[in-house]
């Protein structure tokens, strides 16, 4: 019995090696995508986004404000424009991505204790550029404003400590957890990597099993063990080694990670076998999986909060292993969540594994009956 099982395991491994499609998806594609996908995000953050300045004041304080804006890592004062139409033209040509207008009498109003508002125009079509501009600007404006106000108070005879207590009676400190630099690669890649595992595993199974006659129980089990085993190795590469190579934050416990990874891979394998039974051609399976990648990423709730999706949609999306496994693995690997915080996900994955196995069996039976 054991030798039979062992032979089936060897057969399953050889089958992957022998099938060109399976070999390239299960052995090659994972690595390829892991290198290819991260490319756009590797610089992590936006640096020196060019902005145009319209300085209608030309005073010492307006220049000081502009200097502070320029001092931020994220933006750089690239152009000075005489008026709004010319700044707008630069913006439309994508030579600058934001416009700052310092009004006339900026210095006079500020020193006289009147509000000296500055106007800023950023690009609503690009969220990241928009928020980069917003934070650089409000930091510059706030620091200059506080300094001027404290200066005015101390000039009127208030001591420094009291002046600070009046200007800023309560400090609000904002601490970014888990991705302290706000890196875009650190945000997207951990989730994408999990999805790559799922999609390439499904494609590999599609290549091997779609349109083929189902094999016996022992050999199917041996296949499943080989797939889960192989992808457990890939999970180590993609979820532990690659983050290290790319210097993404990763603080999780590898044992906890595998406690999620193994049930997840089992669920994906069962799903792959079920899909291969349902879609009769390899081409169909590959097409289906290729177009589904991106929607699945958005459903996982990492880039777009699950709370903002319709409840029903999120409930339906539960049937896809990645929907719950992606956030759980991100929480374990990037946020250091413990076993207790992800146990629900583990049960969901085991449930899915069981459900898809049953589905594969039922389709099997249904297909066999008319033939018999």
């Amino acid at each position, binding site marked *: 019995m054991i030798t039979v099982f062992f032979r089936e395991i060897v057969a399953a491994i050889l089958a992957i090696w022998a099938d060109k499609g399976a070999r390239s998806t299960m052995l090659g594609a994972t690595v390829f995508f892991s290198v290819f996908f991260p490319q756009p995000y590797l610089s992590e953050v936006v640096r020196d986004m060019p902005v145009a300045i319209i300085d209608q004041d030309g005073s010492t304080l307006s220049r000081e404000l502009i200097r502070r804006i320029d001092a931020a890592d994220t933006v750089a004062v690239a152009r000075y424009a005489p008026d709004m139409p010319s700044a707008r033209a630069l913006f439309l040509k994508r030579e600058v991505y934001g416009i700052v207008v310092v009004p006339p009498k900026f210095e006079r109003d500020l020193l006289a*204790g009147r509000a000296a508002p500055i106007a800023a125009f950023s690009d609503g079509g690009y969220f990241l550029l928009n928020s980069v501009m917003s934070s650089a600007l409000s930091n510059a404006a706030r620091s200059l404003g506080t300094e001027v106000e404290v200066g005015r108070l101390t000039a009127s005879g208030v001591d420094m400590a*009291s002046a600070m207590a009046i200007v800023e009676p309560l400090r609000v*400190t904002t601490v970014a957890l888990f991705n302290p630099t706000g890196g875009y690669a650190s945000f997207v890649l951990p989730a994408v990597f999990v999805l790559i595992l799922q999609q390439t595993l499904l494609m590999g199974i599609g290549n091997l099993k779609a349109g083929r006659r189902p094999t016996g129980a022992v050999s199917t089990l041996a296949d499943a063990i080989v797939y889960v085993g192989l992808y457990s190795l890939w999970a180590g590469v993609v979820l532990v080694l690659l983050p290290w190579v790319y210097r993404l934050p990763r603080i999780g416990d590898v044992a906890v990670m595998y406690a999620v990874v193994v049930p997840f891979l089992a669920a994906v394998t069962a799903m792959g076998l079920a899909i291969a039974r349902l879609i009769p051609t390899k081409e169909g399976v590959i097409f289906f999986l290729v177009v589904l990648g991106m929607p699945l990423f958005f459903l996982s709730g990492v880039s777009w909060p699950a709370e903002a999706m319709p409840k029903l949609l999120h409930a339906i999306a539960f049937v896809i292993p990645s929907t719950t496994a992606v956030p759980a693995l991100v929480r374990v690997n990037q946020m250091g969540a413990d076993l207790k915080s992800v146990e629900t996900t583990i049960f969901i994955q085991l449930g899915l594994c069981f459900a898809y196995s049953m589905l594969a069996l039922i389709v099997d039976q249904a297909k066999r009956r008319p033939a018999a």
Partner: protein
Amino acid sequence: MARRAHLKAGFRRALLAELRQIGARPGLMFMLAPFPLLLFALLAAVFQMGLPRELPIAIVDQDRSTLSRQMVRIVDATPEVAVAYEASSLGGGRQLLLSGQVYAVVLIPSRTERDVLAGRRPEVVLFYNNQYMTPGSLVARSVGGALGTVVAGISIEARVARGADVESATLAVAPVPVRQSALFNPSLEYVQFLLAAVMPTVLQIFIAASAALSFSRDRQGVAGLGRSLRLGGTLIKTVAGKLAPYTLAYLLVLWGADALLFGPLGARFGGNLAFHVAYGFVFVLASQMLGVVAALVARDTVSALASVGVIAGPAFGFTGITFPRLSMNGFSTVWADLLPVTHYLQLRTDNILRGAAFDISLPAFVSLLALAGIYGGAMFFLLWRHGRSRSVPVPEALR
């Protein structure tokens, strides 16, 4: 049947042959329009809220004073966040963050109110989950803004207590207010932003994959590409006849998605409609030719589809919609330029959102045309080579 056999080789014959192929495969018909529209509906449902509301956060209130309760109330009142949990300690708040139940924890330390009154400038700390950047930063901004309002209130009171009038005290709180407005997408709606970009990117995969499927199927068939080439007569007529049904179907899907976007979903169309139609058409053609080239280079149908997946699957990251192109490395910049969807999305943004003049869109439009030219040229060259190598034996075998 007899009539069909007499039809002269040309566009119509290639077209009819392709339509028969599509008709014989329900799966292929499903991929032409119903499946992409279904995905569009799914994505529209994902982003339907436009902006997230009531994102859950936790508060650790160790002060339990009038001031701390006021802070909690004001934070809870912001539309973007909801105070969903009151944790007794920071450890409890951390557990809520780790299990994904909240996006941020606000810590109000004990004696906050007393320290404020004594002028000791206590510190309230907002911890937010920056691993989930979109909701995390949204929550951080809203909560920070709400707490800022509380601080401003105290500051105004302090100034009034020192004899200032309310108006000048209010002005002094924010001496340099920033009036920021987003040009061209004032409400910062995600429907405009993400959905309008994701849909063409997904469609690019469909367009390229279906073209790859069509040519690969012929190439792998018994008669090879020679039969299709004979049906069409010339290369151009063959290609036009084979691709026309897909071009039309995906243009209709593209326009259908736009109709939903600018109709029921309420996005604003601020550009030139004719131009929008023109670059949409070139986008579809360029993507199709890319798919055909993949089919003619790859060794079989599965690898043709896989290479389309490799090229078009990760395209979204390269288009610069989420992470800006100006911060990308050299490889990504070049790769992005080779993808039709990059130029299409830029043209879309410039035309629809920004209402830019035609001369500003010209470079992107020329790039898109150039891509269509390059992929088209490669396609015709490969087909011509196939035709030449097969044209000698095939007619003899049939006669």
